[in-house]
């Protein structure tokens, strides 16, 4: 198993720059997820790492070797595709052994690896069937099996669960996580689903517009998002964003539209200039009703409406022209109305510079 | 893409490229060149400009060929389109035994032009063919001798050609009809529009693509018309059913006048380009518009 080093990777399609000088380092055994909305470049980055698409400039190292000019089959990679891409005229066994045959493995070796992978993924009874006779979930396993038999240094997954229904998706997610724990391979995984990313990854690279906004563990992304985009993309229900102005001094505060919030407990990286236009980000679970004894800065708000979500209810409150959401117990939510006092726990909040959208 | 595979791809295309360059482009170019020389039995390189063409267009046999083909071609395309379309519409009316009927209408297309020509020649034999049937029934005066009448023989070829091709047109039209949104019929029924109107003003315009395809196919085979003429009448009686393709063949191999033959062939080429190019252009435009 080995790591990846991507340096200054750039790719354009004509006038459109899809990847802008990307740098990424994946440690051996890590499960790295490339996360982002459509068009952010995550699939292009994966294709580039795989060697399926040519790049304009930059280098790619896999396992310490420079593979920038090499064909996919010479990079020591294996890949699982969104549509599984199984060879329709071959049996499952044929699909699993094709790559090995091309690389001239002995029949004994092929047999050994195919049985091992089939056993691991519980597809042994399907070995003599053709892809057309399999269900979506079974095909997915075969696709993963085809990757596993390769004994590759690096495993690439391109949105493998997008074509499955919700229930199957959850099951397969668990399977993939188990596989990673058992086999410890280095994985780069592309998805637009942040829940998938959060549950599977050791580190997530959140991408937007051809650049990596933040590359960190799920917890880090959640608690200390580096940019406004990451903060809004990760976590559901979403973080509330409140634009305002920062007032520095002995007792710093943020002037929002209607209220003034003392900002002493904000976890800032460094001093912030007085008068800076900022955006305060607070997650709903860090907003509570003051009368329940919650900790934090107190503000006055008016109740707007409740969104029952099952285990919790999301309460929406107005702060002047702005709106803030709070996670409440359903029973408690039912009793809330009119003017209330909210407690904002700013120790877990985020402050962003409005202009640069970066974390302060 | 690996160098190895890219090389393999280009190598794999060598036969096609060779053929395309040497045979297609090269031959066409050489034929055109020869038509501009004074070649007779063997090709020479005496450039004579358009003299062969002057001779060609003054040649009576050629003139008759061209007239025949023009008359034949126009009537063939129009009638085959009409019959094919009509048959397709009928079959589309949810008739029973549709498969059987379709087989019956389409099987002639699988037969060679020689077979077609010979079968029809027999059918239209002035003494023993349909004419005799009419006689036997009692219509003594009717002479069905179009096969040997100079002014009528071209229609015999026409009948055979339509018999051969109508099934093909029908198949193309049928798939076009089946591609039409069935909701249209519900809409016209609600509006009280009679079926024939719907067909003429709504369906036919929607089938422009199918009509274009069928027309292009038929136009291509019209210009190539040779086998049928040879089998049915061998250009006769006299030169009444000569066609350009036969003119080229005769001058190329029997009369040993390749200058004239290539001039004729080039004229055929130019005609085809002139007719097909605008049709293709229109088809492309329609496809591009549909793709939005």
């Amino acid at each position: 198993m080995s790591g990846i080093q991507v340096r200054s990777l750039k790719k354009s399609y004509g006038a459109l720059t899809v990847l802008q000088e990307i740098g990424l380092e994946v440690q051996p055994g890590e499960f790295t997820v490339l996360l982002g909305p459509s068009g952010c470049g995550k699939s292009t980055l994966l294709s580039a790492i795989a060697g399926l698409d040519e790049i304009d400039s930059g280098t790619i190292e896999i396992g310490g070797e420079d593979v920038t000019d090499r064909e996919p089959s010479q990079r020591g990679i294996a890949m699982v595709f969104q549509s599984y891409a199984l060879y329709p005229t071959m049996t499952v066994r044929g699909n699993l052994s094709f790559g090995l045959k091309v690389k001239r493995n002995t029949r004994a070796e092929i047999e050994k690896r195919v049985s091992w992978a089939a056993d691991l993924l519980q597809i042994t009874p399907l070995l003599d069937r053709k892809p057309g006779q399999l269900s979506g979930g079974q095909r997915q396993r075969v696709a993963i099996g085809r990757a596993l038999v390769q004994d590759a240094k690096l495993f690439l997954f391109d949105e493998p669960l997008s074509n499955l229904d919700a229930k199957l998706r959850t099951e397969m997610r668990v399977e993939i996580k188990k596989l990673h724990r058992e086999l410890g391979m280095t994985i780069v995984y592309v998805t637009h689903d942040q829940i998938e990313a959060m549950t599977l990854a050791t580190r997530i690279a959140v991408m937007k517009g051809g650049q990596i906004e933040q590359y960190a563990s799920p917890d880090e992304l959640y608690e200390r998002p580096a940019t406004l985009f990451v903060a809004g993309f990760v976590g559901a229900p979403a973080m509330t964003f409140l634009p305002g102005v920062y007032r520095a001094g002995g007792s710093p505060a943020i002037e929002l539209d209607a209220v003034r919030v003392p900002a002493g407990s904000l976890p800032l990286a460094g001093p912030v200039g007085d008068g800076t236009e900022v955006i305060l980000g607070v997650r709903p679970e860090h907003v509570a009703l003051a009368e329940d004894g919650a900790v934090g800065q107190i503000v006055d708000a008016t109740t707007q409406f409740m969104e029952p979500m099952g285990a919790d209810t999301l309460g929406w409150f107005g702060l002047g022209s702005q709106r803030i959401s709070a996670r409440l117990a359903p029973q408690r939510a039912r009793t809330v109305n009119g003017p209330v006092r909210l407690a904002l726990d700013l120790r877990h909040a985020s402050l962003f510079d409005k202009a640069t959208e970066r974390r302060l | 893409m690996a160098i190895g595979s890219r090389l393999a791809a280009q190598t794999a295309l060598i036969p096609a490229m060779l053929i395309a360059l040497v045979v297609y482009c090269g031959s066409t170019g050489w034929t055109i060149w020869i038509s501009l020389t004074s070649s007779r039995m063997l090709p020479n390189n005496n450039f004579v400009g358009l003299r062969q063409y002057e001779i060609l267009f003054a040649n009576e046999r050629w003139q008759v060929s061209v007239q025949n083909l023009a008359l034949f071609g126009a009537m063939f395309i129009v009638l085959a389109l009409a019959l094919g379309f009509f048959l397709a519409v009928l079959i589309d009316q949810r008739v029973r035994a549709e498969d059987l009927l379709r087989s019956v209408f389409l099987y002639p297309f699988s037969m060679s032009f020689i077979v077609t020509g010979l079968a029809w020649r027999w059918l239209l034999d002035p003494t023993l063919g349909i004419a005799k049937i009419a006689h036997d029934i009692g219509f003594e005066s009717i002479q069905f001798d179009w096969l040997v009448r100079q002014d009528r023989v071209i229609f015999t070829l026409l009948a055979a050609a339509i018999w051969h091709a109508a099934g093909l047109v029908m198949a193309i039209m049928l798939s076009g009809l089946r591609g039409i949104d069935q909701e249209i019929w519900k809409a016209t029924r609600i509006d009280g529009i009679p079926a024939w109107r719907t067909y003429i003003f709504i369906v036919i315009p929607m089938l422009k693509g199918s009509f274009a395809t069928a027309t292009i196919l038929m136009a291509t085979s019209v210009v190539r018309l040779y086998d049928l003429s040879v089998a049915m009448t061998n250009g006769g009686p006299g030169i009444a059913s000569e066609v350009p393709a036969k003119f080229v063949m005769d001058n190329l191999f029997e009369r040993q006048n390749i200058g004239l033959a290539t001039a004729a062939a080039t004229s055929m080429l130019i005609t085809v380009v002139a007719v097909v190019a605008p049709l293709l252009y229109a088809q492309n435009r329609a496809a591009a518009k549909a793709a939005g």
Partner: protein
Amino acid sequence: MRKNARGLTPARIGLYAFLVISAAFFLLPLYVMIVTSLKGMPEIREANMLALPHTPTIAAWVKAWSSACTGLSCNGIQVGFFNSVKIMFPSVIMSIAVGAVTGYALSLWRPRGVALLFGILMAVAFVPYQVFLFPLVRLFSFAGLNSSLPGIITVHTIFGLPTMTLIFRNYFAGIPLELMKAARVDGAGFWRIFGSIMLPMAVPIIVVAMILQVTGIWNDFIFGLVFAGRENFPMTVQLNNIVNSTQGEREYNVDMAATMLTALVPLAVYFISGRWFVRGIAAGAVKG
């Protein structure tokens, strides 16, 4: 399609009547051919064409097959039959092979010059054969291929290329690109992908191609006449010789038997292939 109350309205009756009459028109030549070939010559002269034979006999068929005169020799049209077979098998295989590889390379690999090559191939489909004849004859005599079996096979391959390339290219263009990616990750190159993956997937279109080529090559007349050589004349050419160059009395029953024999192979292909035949037309008809 009109909605129609089931049942025999006058319109419906008229519809079926017209269809039946049309069917009769289309079946007439075939019927007459068969019936004539089963009669004796006296009966042909006396009775009318549509009548069934009094005493059906296959004597005409036997004569057509084994002793009809094609020009100089009188060995029947069986000579032409076997020639056509000899021509057909290699021609079909070669034209499909070259067309398949070309279509595969054009659609899934796209090396340089693809658009131009494809454009030329498509344009050629419309050009009258007469334009190519003389240069080809000269070229072949230069290469020693004139009037030979390899010559006619080459010609069929050359002129089958546009249609074959078109249908294979269109077929392969519909294959999902991820399949190619998976194969490349597995390490397969151009020929490996073609042989192990694409060709097995292309069986339906190969069937269509075979139908088109078998019918087209068997029915060919002009190329066989020009390029095959006297000993290798295909059945169509022999047929024309038998019928059109008879001295003296014409034996119509023998002529018709010979015609039927020539038509048998394509007819058989047609009836066996059924829907596939129509699919073949659709595939070949989609030009440009």
